[in-house]
């Protein structure tokens, strides 16, 4: 039969889902993607789908495979990683063929479309959009008097944020924020991106140069620094500790991505827990009047440049079509669907809290298309901001170093010959 190799992250859970095809019954990223592919296999016996699972995020391995000329047929890729591979001519443009199988790029949400489009072409099929969110412990919020109409009162300016945080701490004795600040770089950068975007600061006017020595950036870092200094956030937790900590009532708002919604929702239904009947989730509130925006990224499916038979090519697109058709199922993970039609569907709206966050499909914004090495940039910025927020380095110096290092990094990205 016709064989294609699908490479993905999201882990392995064959013990539970290895032979399941009932997608609706599956939970978690791993469970849903596994059953989806099982189902596809069952429905398309003429195609042999080989799944190769890689450790997150798998780009080292992918690079190695591409260098060897042994790439898989279709791969999961963060939209933020697409420019790196695309600029090296390692990906196939997919727009036309997607359209041909009935996956209409016009149906992509705005955030998704931005994520996969470079120079007018579509380089991947978006699968979801995800963004950092405010996961909220409503029980504490209520205690702190920050609930109105069963909705949390969220700040609308940095000053208000700090004010409310102080009020929260006074009332509950707990810090307002739960954050994974230890051993975790990207969270810092994503916060910065979001609030720079809200100030409409064009920090990547030139995709080869970042601008961080700006009052906008300073304002943001200083806000987080104040929160840290006054103990209005948990400190020193790593990702696992923070994730657990929020569940165990360590604080009011946990800044983490869409993927945790399912777990916390389930927790809120357990009795006698800090989150019992007291969980909700919102996009980052707009603290600056200029623009309603949230930094967002998404998972997408891309096709490495590779020789394929027409049948294989067709098989890949059949799979992509199948995944697109089942995008709602994937959205049950907490990620936002990549397709407008799904977001607007009643089915999706019926999922808990999705109403609150659906707007991210519009407001979610990735970095400008031409920016390469986004993972490295995220890390670099995170490395510099962490000590600034923890008070080990001056804000000025941190922003200077971050800007310098990012620009140095981008300066040394070899220009490739020819236009993509």
């Amino acid at each position, binding site marked *: 039969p016709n064989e294609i190799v699908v490479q993905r992250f999201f882990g392995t859970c064959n013990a539970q889902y290895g032979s399941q095809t009932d997608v609706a019954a599956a939970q978690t990223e791993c469970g849903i993607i596994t059953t989806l592919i099982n189902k596809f296999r069952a429905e398309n016996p003429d195609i042999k789908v080989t799944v190769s699972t890689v450790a997150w995020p798998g780009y*080292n391995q992918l*690079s190695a495979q591409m260098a060897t000329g042994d790439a898989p047929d279709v791969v999961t890729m963060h939209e933020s990683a697409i420019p790196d591979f695309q600029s*090296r001519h390692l990906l196939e443009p997919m727009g036309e063929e997607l359209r041909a199988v009935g996956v209409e790029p016009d149906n992509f949400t705005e955030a998704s479309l931005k994520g996969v489009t470079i120079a007018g072409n579509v380089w991947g099929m978006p699968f979801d959009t995800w963004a950092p969110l405010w996961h909220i412990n409503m029980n504490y919020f209520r205690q702190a008097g920050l609930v109105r109409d069963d909705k949390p009162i969220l700040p609308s300016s940095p000053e208000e944020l700090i004010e409310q945080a102080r009020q929260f701490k006074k009332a509950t004795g707990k810090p307002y924020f739960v954050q994974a600040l*230890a051993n975790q770089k990207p969270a810092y950068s994503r916060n910065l991106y979001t609030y720079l975007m809200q100030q409409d600061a064009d920090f990547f006017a030139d995709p080869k140069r970042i601008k961080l020595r700006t009052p906008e950036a300073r304002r943001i870092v200083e806000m987080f620094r104040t929160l840290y200094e006054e103990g209005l956030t948990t400190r*020193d937790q790593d990702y696992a500790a923070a994730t657990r900590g929020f569940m165990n009532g360590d604080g009011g708002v946990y800044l983490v991505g869409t993927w945790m919604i399912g777990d916390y929702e389930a927790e809120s239904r357990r009795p006698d827990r800090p989150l019992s009947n007291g969980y909700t989730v919102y996009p980052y509130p707009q603290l600056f009047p200029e623009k309603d925006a949230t930094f967002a990224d998404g998972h997408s499916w891309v096709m490495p440049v590779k020789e394929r038979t027409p049948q294989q090519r067709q098989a890949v697109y059949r799979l992509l079509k199948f995944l697109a058709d089942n995008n709602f199922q994937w959205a049950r993970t907490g990620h936002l669907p990549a397709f407008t039609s799904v977001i607007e569907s009643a089915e999706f709206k019926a999922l808990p809290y999705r109403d609150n966050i659906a707007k991210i499909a519009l407001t979610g914004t990735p970095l400008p298309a031409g920016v390469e*090495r986004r993972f490295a940039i995220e890390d670099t910025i995170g*490395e510099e901001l*962490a000590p600034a927020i923890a008070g080990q380095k001056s804000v000025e110096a941190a922003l200077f170093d971050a800007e310098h290092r990012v620009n140095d990094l981008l300066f*040394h990205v070899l220009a490739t010959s020819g236009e993509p």
Partner: protein
Amino acid sequence: MSVAAAHVTDSRETRSGARGDWSSLLYVAPFLLIYIVLVVYPLFSGMWLSLHKADFFGERVFVGLENFTRLLADKVFLGTLWNTFYFIVLTVPALAIIGLGLALALNRTTRAAAVLRGVFFSSSVLSVTIVTLLWRVVFIPDGGFIATVLEMFGKPPVAFLSDEDLALPAIAITTIWWCIGLPMMLFLAALQQVPKELYEAAALDNAGRWKTLWSVTLPSIRRTFALVIIIEIVLQFQLFGQAQLMTLGGPNNASRPIVLFIYEVGFNRWDIGYAAAAAQILFGLILMAALAQYFVARRKGEA
């Protein structure tokens, strides 16, 4: 008989060592071939690469020593040099001394000692992923093992992994825990070579426990001591997994070792020319450290 003829030359050479015999090379040839292809060639290839601005997939531009001058101006890189040295200072003496201490205590034939030797060796068997995972649980201030203990004494928790001054020491402790098996084994092997009579002579010479340790045991195993130090310096120079998995080099680059830098530059930033240059510097440093140690040990040994 050609084999027989080779014999004569062989015996001739074993003592006089003047003339050569190419057929002897056959024994070392398989290894040398692999060594040349997989170490020497890539090493030189890496050196050549370090003179280029090069992308993982893109083309290469010869830039001479630019990567090196860039490195010397790169605060992060210079920081990694310091971190690496600091880490070596933290771990190598500790590994040598603790390894020796354990070897001394466990150099006996009882069953308990055998079990304990197994215990102290067992951590070496775990992969770095697991080791770091375990120790993150120990260090994390929020419900971590140490924090819980401190709490029992009414002390506030200490944030080892997010404190600039404590991150590297915490990684060092983890590393010592993980690596203690090898030096212990090497020392045990060495201790068993020390003639029993020396200890008896020392006992008759009224030497107490510490005196015996200092004046008889230690001098007798000083070669092994040097070997352990060299091996550990070489190994710890290559610190990578622990830092990547426990702190990602942070906070504020305080725990980024040089190898992690190379990894990040090469595989996350695809700036492989730059990474290659850093690798060359690492190679040079290890070589210098090993040679220095070797010569110091040799001079002392011959004195």
